[in-house]
């Protein structure tokens, strides 16, 4: 027997699958935005585990995404011809495998970055993770086998609505389930007070590494979705700005708030679309929107109770 949360996950996956089956009848423009929403939900929810729940301020999420994007793209593009016959030519088997590989490589990177840098706290950790993200980008720029700075082309078009939202649903479930248990309350304890957490028998380093590895895994998988959606990836797409974009989603949604972060990811993806007619100015409007929201709702978009009267 499954638990209630697992039924919700299954129902969501099924719903997404049904909606996805009719993809061809939807407006491709909206479909495009929807898939981007799915990717951003995955990125924001996974970063929320690291930044929000565990309180480890990471600015390197785009780095993990890049690692996942490149490794899954290399697998399907360069080795797809060899691997496809092994799974009977079924791309729906090959693609999740590629996503998992991307996620695992990113998770391994998360582990490698995590262990030394988790001795650092706060601003220092933020700077180290920022440096890590940049290193990944520069390394990718210099690997000719994946196109160097020109980027990688010819990635097969495997992503659809189902994969994008399916992964988002799984990510949200994993983050939720991980935190909502006696074990998982330890993540929040680490974020609240490390000294007290240690005194309560919580191995803070272990918790931080788990958060980093799980967060990196889903960022990597999201990178895989992105690569097989755009069919073209370049290092410049995974720069510092991308990391900041994800951090903004988490902060706007409310650190450590699952629903808020999902809403913020969707909102920030969709909101720039009607602003397209303003051309370059839309970035200014976008920035103003974030500033406005931060002033109006510093605790995050969806933090219950939604309307709380200020205490006199």
């Amino acid at each position, binding site marked *: 027997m499954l638990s209630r949360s*697992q039924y919700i996950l299954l129902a969501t996956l099924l719903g997404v699958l049904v909606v996805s089956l009719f993809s061809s009848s939807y407006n491709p423009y909206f479909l495009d935005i929807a898939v981007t929403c799915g990717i951003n939900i995955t990125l924001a929810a996974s970063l929320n585990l690291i930044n929000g729940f565990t309180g480890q301020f990471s600015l390197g999420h785009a780095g993990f995404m890049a690692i996942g994007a490149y490794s899954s793209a290399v697998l399907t593009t360069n080795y797809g011809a060899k691997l496809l016959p092994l799974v009977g030519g079924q791309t729906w088997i090959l693609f999740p495998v590629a996503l998992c590989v991307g996620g695992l490589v990113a998770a391994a990177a998360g582990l490698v970055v995590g262990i030394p840098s988790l001795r650092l706290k706060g601003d220092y950790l933020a700077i180290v993770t920022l440096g890590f993200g940049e290193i990944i980008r520069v390394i990718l720029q210099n690997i000719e086998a994946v196109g160097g700075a020109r980027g990688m082309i010819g990635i097969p078009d495997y992503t659809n609505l189902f994969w994008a939202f399916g992964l988002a649903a799984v990510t949200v479930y994993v983050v939720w389930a991980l935190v*909502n248990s*006696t074990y998982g*309350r330890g993540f929040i304890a680490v974020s*609240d007070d490390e*000294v*007290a957490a240690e*005194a309560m028998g*919580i191995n803070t380093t272990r918790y931080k590494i788990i958060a980093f590895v799980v967060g990196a895994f889903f960022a990597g998988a999201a990178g895989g979705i992105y690569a097989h959606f755009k069919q073209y990836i370049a290092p410049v797409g995974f720069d510092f700005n991308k990391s900041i974009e994800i951090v903004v989603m988490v902060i706007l949604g409310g650190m450590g708030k699952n629903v808020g972060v999902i809403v913020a990811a969707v909102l920030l993806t969709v909101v720039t679309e009607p602003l397209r007619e303003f051309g370059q100015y839309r970035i200014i409007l976008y920035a103003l929107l974030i500033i406005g929201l931060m002033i109006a709702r510093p605790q995050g978009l969806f933090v219950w109770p939604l309307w709380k009267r200020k205490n006199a």
Partner: protein
Amino acid sequence: MPSAETKPLLEMDRCTIRFGGLTAVSELTMSIGAEELVGLIGPNGAGKTTVFNLITGVYEPSEGQIRLGGESLAGRKPYGITKCGIARTFQNIRLFPSLTVFDNVRVAFHLHLKHDAVHSLTRFRAFREEEAQIATQTFELLEIFHLGKFRDAAAKSLSYGDQRRLEIVRALATRPKLLLLDEPAAGMNASEKQELMKLIRFIKDKYKIAVLLVEHDMQVVMGICERILVLDYGIKIAEGAPAEVRRNPKVIAAYLGEEVEIKNSK
């Protein structure tokens, strides 16, 4: 003196710790028997909290050894020492402010969990049964200490006295053999102090654990401790029953200063 018939629970054997040129604790030897209530007192800066930090693994002694139940605690991280059976509270309350009262205690059951991260994802029956069991235990513990009504409130919203109590409850949830209380009476009024003394005695009797109490408040220390150790400048200057310690001239000197003959310089 500790009861000689049983082996002591905690032993500190000639422990010294230096910070640069400063010797904060010097060759401290002490022991605490199982189910003993020991007080650690001394003037400001005497090294009481440093002793706590040594026992709980925040600092490692420069020299000497600390043993719990005969086993050395050297090289263990704070969480490992808590696992061995030493829990503590803090001088300045350190709850998990964003967690609820219930979760503050629940998270401390962490040490005795059979499940881990993977099981929180699979959520099989065994996991759910264990979670339900922990929830019951947590609630029972909160009820015993009259915190049940606050279970869903944020820990930071509690009153000062309740926060102190919650911190003790949280420490108890780790199922310690030795409970270290760092100035639990700080900032309490007379009636709250009376409550606290009752509470400490109650904990000791109900859970059959040893308690080491650091406290400034003489009324509390003298009132409940079976044995008192006095530190001054990191050196143990006296040890014994409250009545003995109170009369000890060295202790009086440490607290009130010595009589000095003032010579006229002219």
